[in-house]
């Protein structure tokens, strides 16, 4: 089973560039299926990023974010080997979490 959260980091110019991919349908509830029925909404509501347990990014997503949200950000003062933890919660109350070690 593919990990539904993928975290990649690269150290560059004294900081760390991080890419987080969160596999998720991000259904808005506005689309209709082939029979014209509305596909129910199902989307990530919020996502958090922690580095060595410190909250660094608190993201509020929603129906305007594309399927499989891909976030890119940069940490200026995260030490090599720090633990990065990404967590998301969606509109169904489902949650997902993943950890990685920063470059």
């Amino acid at each position: 089973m593919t990990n539904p959260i993928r975290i990649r980091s690269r150290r560059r110019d004294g900081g760390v560039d991080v890419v987080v991919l969160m596999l998720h349908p991000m259904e808005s509830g506005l689309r209709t299926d082939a029979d014209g029925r509305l596909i129910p909404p199902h989307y990530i509501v919020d996502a958090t990023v922690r580095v060595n347990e410190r909250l660094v990014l608190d993201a509020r997503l929603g129906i305007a974010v594309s399927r499989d949200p891909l976030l890119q950000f940069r940490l200026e003062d995260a030490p090599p080997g720090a633990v990065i933890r990404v967590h998301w919660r969606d509109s169904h109350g489902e949650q997902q979490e993943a950890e990685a070690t920063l470059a």
Partner: protein
Amino acid sequence: MNGGQRYGAPRAPASTCRDGVGRRRFVQSGLWLAASTGSLAQSVLARVAPPAYSVDDVLAAITSPARASDRVRVELPERVEDGAVVPVTVTADLEDVRALYVLTDMNPMPIAAHFRLAAGVAPRIAVRIKLAGSGYVYGAAQRSDGLYWAAVATEVIAGGCS
């Protein structure tokens, strides 16, 4: 439509959702608030009457003063074939940015996403958003002294109205 950076005067929404009644149905269905990006967006929307919103009103409701600024850069394609996946990067050449916002003037919801940043996080975020049609995408950076924003026009061939 050129993709030039825009600062300054407000502008009417460029187009409605490709799915015609999508915006009106969405508002009437009550999904409007349920689908909002958290309590902040809800409190913002409570002050802005649906269905027609002015992004400038939304910006001012996030925090005032809201100023157009050339210290904020919004990067996205000038022309988009598929509005379902549009990469946007918002960068603020500012110190002590606490939050970054991505907004649009053509979607049912004005705020596409927002991000609270801790100290040590660069004031730059990239995300992929859906665009219902052509129009402006806004990036805004919030600091203790207010909101700084910029907007870029984009032409969307096939709206990602979902």
